[in-house]
């Protein structure tokens, strides 16, 4: 059983999705337990796999016993074991939250929603675990196709947003596919590690074909991760979709794509190629500086909570892309740590937004008037998430920013450090505005607001247990990941140090 753990991470949600599609339509009560079972197995298998990776090092899992490069394999090392654990945990917590939200928002499609949900998680976990570049494309499309449908189940505007996401997402995935094609022309292989071996063995790093492949793959991945200015699909998709959808996709999709970028740079193309030979660090770090600032300022202009959070995701993508392209070991460690920290802090604030939306039915910031007295526990959970996004110790967000800033200083990219600090300040303004509205209660009622006022007085009460529980767990995890940051970073450093990134530059 333990030998099979990498495959179980994937297969548990996948098989239960099939089971759910068969059984769930007539028996709606079955859906929620099945989803929880599948994802709980997946989380347990991820924990086992992570333990094994720490003990034994890289794990190869061969499907059908075929050796790569001919067979398909999963290859798990320190990087993807951590990301897989984060992905499965986030999807389990979101599933717990969905117990009440899904029947409320998509009442006639509960079993379809959960089937797609599990398939989407399968796709995301597959992207993280696979060792095959073409399978990665198929898994990107699996997670993308299901997320178009998951978003499209929302309001009128959501369908249009899902359509735009479909167009953009297809362009991104197609560029990635083309890039893989060019890699295949030169190396004759699709296995990520074999591609790297072939590139080294045949001394292909100077080849223009490899350069074209790299550009196509990077552009494709940037579209999929909503790297500014390729972000246009994201805000509306995550605002108007059902709240469970945004809570699942918001924390995961962009982070998983950043994982793909790191995997491509470090494992497939090698850092010497991406950082030393191309010498694009400066340009891309500047692009990420613009991304961080533009997205943070756009977030300030939003009046809807979900949309504001969506722009924060885009800013965070800027953090991580910049952190990787600092071409500094500390920067990459910070980016990988930030993938995990950001998955949980985005989850935390999106859970909060979902709770507010279910309780008040509104998305605007003024919906939060006086919530501290009415929903104290929810607000505590939100505070931890907000503090983490701002970067207040001891939350995980503080430590990830700490590592990123260290990377920025040691590689001499002070513009990146400045952008991080400005963005933290803007986050502070954003969240203290919400805290002010929620704490200092009601503004004077506007015009005919008297009726609403009364409605709201006894309106929202503390969220139900199934919604509160994941929020508080996430908040606890944020503090936990923050306090134990050295342990997490030790695993990441172990992985990154094999590439000698700082050394090659000097």
């Amino acid at each position, binding site marked *: 059983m333990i030998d099979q753990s990498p495959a179980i991470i994937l297969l548990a949600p996948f098989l239960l999705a099939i089971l759910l599609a068969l059984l769930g339509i007539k028996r709606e009560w079955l859906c929620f337990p099945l989803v929880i079972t599948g994802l709980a197995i997946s989380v347990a298998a991820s924990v086992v796999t992570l333990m094994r990776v720490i003990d034994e090092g890289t794990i190869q899992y061969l499907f059908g016993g075929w050796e790569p490069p001919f067979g398909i394999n999963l290859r798990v090392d320190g990087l993807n074991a951590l990301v897989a654990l984060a992905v499965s945990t986030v999807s389990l917590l979101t599933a717990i939250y969905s117990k009440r939200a899904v029947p409320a928002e998509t009442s006639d499609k509960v079993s379809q929603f959960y089937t797609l949900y599990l398939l989407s998680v399968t796709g995301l976990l597959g992207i993280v675990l696979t060792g095959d570049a073409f399978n990665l494309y198929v898994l990107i499309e699996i997670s993308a196709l299901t997320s178009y449908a998951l978003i499209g189940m929302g309001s009128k505007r959501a369908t249009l947003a899902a359509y735009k996401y479909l167009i953009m997402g297809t362009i991104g995935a197609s560029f990635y596919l083309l890039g893989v094609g060019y890699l*295949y022309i030169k190396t004759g292989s699709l296995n990520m590690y074999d591609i790297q071996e072939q590139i080294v063995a045949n001394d292909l790093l100077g080849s223009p074909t490899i350069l074209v492949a790299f550009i196509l793959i990077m552009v494709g991945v940037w579209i999929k991760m909503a790297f500014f200015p390729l972000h246009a699909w994201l805000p509306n998709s995550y605002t108007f979709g059902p709240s469970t959808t945004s809570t699942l996709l918001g924390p995961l999709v962009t982070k998983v794509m950043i994982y793909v970028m790191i995997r491509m740079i470090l494992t497939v193309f090698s850092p010497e190629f991406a950082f030393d030979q191309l010498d694009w660090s400066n340009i891309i770090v500047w692009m990420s500086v613009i991304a961080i600032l533009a997205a943070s300022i756009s977030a300030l202009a939003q009046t809807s909570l979900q949309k504001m959070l969506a722009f924060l995701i885009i800013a965070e993508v800027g953090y991580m892309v910049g952190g990787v392209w600092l071409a500094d070991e500390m920067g990459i460690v910070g980016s990988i740590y930030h993938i995990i920290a950001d998955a949980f802090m985005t989850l935390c604030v999106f859970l909060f937004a979902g709770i507010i939306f279910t309780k008040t039915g509104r998305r605007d910031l003024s919906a939060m008037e006086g919530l501290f007295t009415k929903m104290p526990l929810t607000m505590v959970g939100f505070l931890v998430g907000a503090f983490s996004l701002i970067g207040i110790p001891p939350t995980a967000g503080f430590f990830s920013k700490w590592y990123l800033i260290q990377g920025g200083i040691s590689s001499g990219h002070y513009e990146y450090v400045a952008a991080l600090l400005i963005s933290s300040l803007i986050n502070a303004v954003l969240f203290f505005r919400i805290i002010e509205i929620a704490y200092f209660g009601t503004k004077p009622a506007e015009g005919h607001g008297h009726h609403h006022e009364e409605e709201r007085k006894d309106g929202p009460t503390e969220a139900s247990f199934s919604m509160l529980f994941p929020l508080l767990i996430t908040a606890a995890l944020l503090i936990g990941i923050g306090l134990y940051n050295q342990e997490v970073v030790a695993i990441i450093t172990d992985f990154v140090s094999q590439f000698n990134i700082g050394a090659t530059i000097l």
Partner: protein
Amino acid sequence: MELLEALSAKFNYWIYVIIMMIGLYAMISKNNLVKKLIGMSIFQTAIILFYVSIGVKEGDTIPILYHDQVHPSHGDSHHEADTGHGEDHHPSHEEIVANLHIEPDDFANPLPHVLMLTAIVVGVATLGVGLALTQKIYRDFGSIEENEILESIKSAK
């Protein structure tokens, strides 16, 4: 003349880029949501053409071995061998492979073609989801022209 040669030598690749750009243009600039999806299909088909072109070699054939290539000695005695089984010596898999004389250059590379089967399936699925979304948009907004939809959103505010 040189230009012509360069064009004809890599004809498939020129065409794939042109088709891809036509698709991309339609996806970006068309106003009608169905036309955008048609553009998307063209875009994906161009990539399929690219992959199929990778696998082709000059003067190649389909990568399938015929029976007499694998069992040259048996050739016509196929039926007799079937009736009198046990007496005839059946060569093991390793022996067959060792006796084969196959020039890889004679066969098209099947791998990119097989990959494209998957990509075609993905493309069909994407198109299906896209059309389903378009249908829902039409039901919600009463139009599939992007500018009319955006106007109706604006006026609803």
